[in-house]
Structures are given as C-alpha cells and as structure tokens.
C-alpha cells in the first residue's frame, strides 16, 4: 500500500509538470514552443577569453538548446563573434588567444586537451560572413568535407551532395552545372553552397557568423527561410548585426556588450520587454 501511494504521488507530480508546460506553451507562440524542454547541446560555464592582456569575454554563462536558433547581437567588438568561434575552436589559430572556463558540447568539454579538434569541427559546422566557396567545382565543394573525413564510397558522396544541395534549395538552380566552378555562382548562391557544404558532413550544430551581411535582400530572405527548415535537424547559432533579422529568425537572443553577456532570453522578450536598460537602448538604436 505504501508503494502504491508513492507511485500515485509521483504520477500526479508529473501530470502537474506537464500541465504547467502546457500553460506555458499557450503563452508562447509558433517556433518558441517547447524550447525549454529540449536537450541542452551547448553549455558555456564562466567563459573568459583573453587576447594577450585584452579581455574579450567576461565570465559568460549560457546554455543553448537543441534544434533552436539562437542569435547573438551587440555592437562591433562586443565579443559575440569571438564567443561563436569558441564553439568550434576557430580561435585556436589566433596569437595569444587564451580561454578560461569551460564550454561543453553534448556534455563534452571541448577545450579538454585530448579532444580531437577535427572531430569537433565535424559536429560543429561554420558558415562565414563572406561566401567563401573553394575555387573548385560545385560538386567538389560539397563533397570536400566528406572526402577529408575519409569517405570513399562514391554513391554515398553523390547522395549526400544532392541531398545537401536540396536542403539549401540550390539543387534546382545548379543541378545541370555541378561540374562548373563554384566561383561562377552569384553571391547568394555561393553562400547557400557554403551552407550545403557544411550540411554534407552532417553536423549537429551550425555556427553562422553574419551569414547575410554581404548579400542583397532577396538572397538574405532565402537564407532566412532556409534557417526555419534547418532548425528541424540542426541547432543554429547566428551572429547578426541586423536586429530585424534576429527578431525574425531566432528563438533565443543574447545581447553582448563590451565582453559581457548583458541579457539572454526568449527573442520575443528581448525585443518587446527587455529587462536591462542597455538592451533596451541597443535594440531601439540609441547606441551601437
């Protein structure tokens, strides 16, 4: 009898929990559904970054959930790009770069000595500010990631190339030109190709460092559209200077200023009801 009582209580507690979530869901709209319930995929614990004597990031704590879009906003030099590049260790090549604290991806400490950086970057892909396709054919651009990871199965590579190009909605535009140089594509197509190239190795996370700042509005819209689809399969972290873009595409937004994480919350909250004055000033364009 005692056992049964405990089980019943537990059951009721769980039920209560679910009901609370349901209430929360009704408040939240569209893409923000259930985000708190998702699995944590990136976790930063007290991250400090130094370039020599200059401190670029000051004690950042932040968690990012799976299958969400997180936007990093803030004025130039606030550390948002630096922080983004910590997730795939692209800062390793910078002189005097020094990181203190811990970053966990899938519960692995990525700044641990024994981590294989190449394996990490396979899981955490990156798209850069300026489209940077390799000076090779379109096909080779997408296949490159697979080849460097030792995949030799030609049919698999071809399948992945087609699938990745379809995923970025580029397939219809280039299916007859796969052997042509990627440099012949337009800027927007090049950037989508760069995204396809990243998708081909099937990462879990895609980092985007101002991916549309070099593109025209139509290409930008196409890529934003793409992000909604990609979110179903990947976790996306995007740095952007475009506030409307952050508001449009992201579930969560983090505002950085002078190396501090000022505020991190649901995008809707940040843009409608920020808790910090600095955030308010920045998003209304009073500075930055």
């Amino acid at each position, binding site marked *: 009898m005692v056992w049964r009582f405990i089980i019943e209580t537990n059951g009721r507690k769980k039920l209560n929990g679910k009901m609370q979530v349901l209430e929360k869901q009704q408040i939240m709209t569209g893409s923000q559904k259930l985000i708190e319930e998702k699995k944590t995929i990136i976790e930063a614990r007290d991250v400090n970054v130094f370039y020599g004597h200059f401190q670029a990031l000051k004690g950042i704590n932040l968690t990012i959930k799976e299958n969400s879009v997180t936007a990093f906003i803030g004025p130039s030099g606030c550390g948002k790009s630096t922080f983004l590049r910590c997730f*795939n260790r*692209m800062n390793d*090549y910078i*002189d005097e770069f020094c990181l203190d604290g811990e970053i966990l991806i899938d519960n692995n400490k990525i700044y641990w000595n024994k981590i294989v950086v*190449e*394996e*990490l*970057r*396979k899981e955490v*892909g*990156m798209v*850069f500010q*300026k489209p*940077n*396709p*390799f*000076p090779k054919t379109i096909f080779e651009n997408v296949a*490159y*990631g697979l*080849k*460097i*990871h030792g995949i030799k199965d030609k049919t698999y590579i071809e399948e992945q190339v087609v699938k990745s190009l379809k995923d970025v909605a580029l397939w219809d535009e280039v299916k007859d030109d796969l052997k042509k140089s990627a*440099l012949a594509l337009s800027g927007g197509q090049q950037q989508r190709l*760069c995204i396809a*190239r*990243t998708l081909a*190795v099937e990462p879990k996370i895609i980092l985007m460092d101002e991916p549309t700042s070099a593109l025209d509005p139509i290409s930008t819209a196409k890529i934003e559209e793409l992000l909604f689809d990609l979110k179903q399969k990947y976790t996306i972290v995007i740095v952007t200077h475009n506030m409307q873009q952050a508001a449009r595409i992201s579930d969560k937004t983090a505002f950085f200023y002078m190396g501090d994480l000022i505020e991190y919350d649901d995008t809707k909250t940040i843009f409608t009801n920020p808790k910090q004055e600095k955030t308010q000033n920045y998003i209304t364009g009073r500075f930055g």
Partner: protein
Amino acid sequence: MTNALKNKLIDNAFKVFGIICTLFGLVILGILIFNIAEVGLTRIDWNFITSLPSRKAEKAGIYTALMGTVWILFLTAIIAFPIGVGAGIYLEEYGKKSKWANFLEINISNLAGVPSIIYGLLGLEIFVRAFNMGGSILAGSFTLALLILPIIIVSTREALKAVPSSIKDASVALGASKWQTIWNQTLPASIGGVLTGVILAISRAIGETAPLIVVGALAYVPFAPSSPMDEFTVMPIQIFNWVSRPQHEFAVNAAAAIIILLLITFMMNGVAVYYRNKWQKKIKW
C-alpha cells in the same frame, strides 16, 4: 603660371622620366641582341647544334654543352623543387610565429645574397669531395639547386600568402587537418605562382657559370653526357671558352651559342609568364 598648370607640367615631366627609365634596360637588351644576331645568326644551323666541340671553329658545335645544360637543368629542378617548396610551406604555414622560424627566415634572405662563387666552393667541398661525386653533373646540379633554393622558397611563400585565409578557414571549419588544407586547398590554389617561381629560378640557373667552373665543369668535353655521374660542360662555359680564343671564327661561334642560350631563357620565362597569366585568370576571389 597657375598652380594647376604647374602641377600638370610636373606630372608630364615625371611621366617622360618614367618612360626613359623603363626603356633604359630594354634598349640595352635590344642593342645586345642586335649585335649578337648580326654576328652569330648566320652561323646557326642544325650542324652547329648537333656537332661535338672541335679545335676547328667551323666544325665545332654546341652539342655537348647543350646536353650538359639540359641535364643540369633537369636534375637541378628535380632536386630544388621539392626541397624549396617544402621549406616554403613550412615557413609560411607551420613555423610562422616561432623565434626559430624568424631566425630561419633571416638566414634564407642571407643565403639569397651569397655570391654564387661561394656556392661553387661549398659544392666543391661537400658534393665533389665529401660525397665523392667528382666533377659530375650530379655535383653541379646539387650546387645549383642550393643556389636557387632561396629564390624558390621566397616565391613559394609569396604564392601561398596570396591564397585568401577565408579558403583555409572554410577548409579547417569543415574539420580538415592542417595538412589536408594545405594539400587540397592552399597548394592547388597557389600552384601557378609556385611553378612560376620555380621556372624563373631555374632560368637563372641556366646562366650560372662561376659555381660550375669551381665544381669542375670542363671547357672541353669530347662526348655528350649520358648519366648523372658523367663529367660535363654547360653553355655559358662553352661560350666563355670560345670568347677567350683569339680567332674571329670562335667569336662567331660564341655569338651563335649566346643566341641559343638566350632563346632557351626567353622560352622558359615565356612559359612562366603564360602560366602566371593563366592562373591569374582562372582564380578570381
């Protein structure tokens, strides 16, 4: 005179000065070629190219010297290319920031400034004597390879530097190792520049005389070399030998040989320029 007019005058004056500077070298080269062509052009025929050297000027040919030059160039290229490019890649991609790399860099610049006769003496001591190669083509090639290494290293670095870092970033961000990035992206994108540097370096090696004399290239070699261990002579030494004879007929031979040597050099430079242009057209960032 108004200020604008004055400025325009100075502008034009400098333009004329610049044209004169540019033409200076070209005019001298033109005079040289004209002079030599006048003396030697009629002497060139198939016999001149395929004949062995002789004490009689009209029977003498450049066959042994030409073959010696071809052998030397071929082996020098084979030796200098991998070593020079390898060193260039190391300095540019791997050892960029260390004090050790800095030290190496300064000394490679120093090497480029060492007079070629010193390389000859070095080659004599190391390759001819210590490695017991004798006055062979191999010893000569190693010596010349040493001589042109700094040029290849510097031009390789320049070519690698011209590859935008965004390409390397993209490769690395996909999980490529450093070597994968160099092999698959940086080198293919810069190979035109690298090869141009190598060809120019080798076309410089064609004209080198002093180090080869020291190493033991002979003025008179009765037969064309058939293996890397044979003794040899090269075109510049043959020319020097003919010029130093008193008879006028040998001077004609020398002029004819100079024309052929120049032709080879121009051809190699032409190939280098062709590839550079082709490469520049192909890749626009």
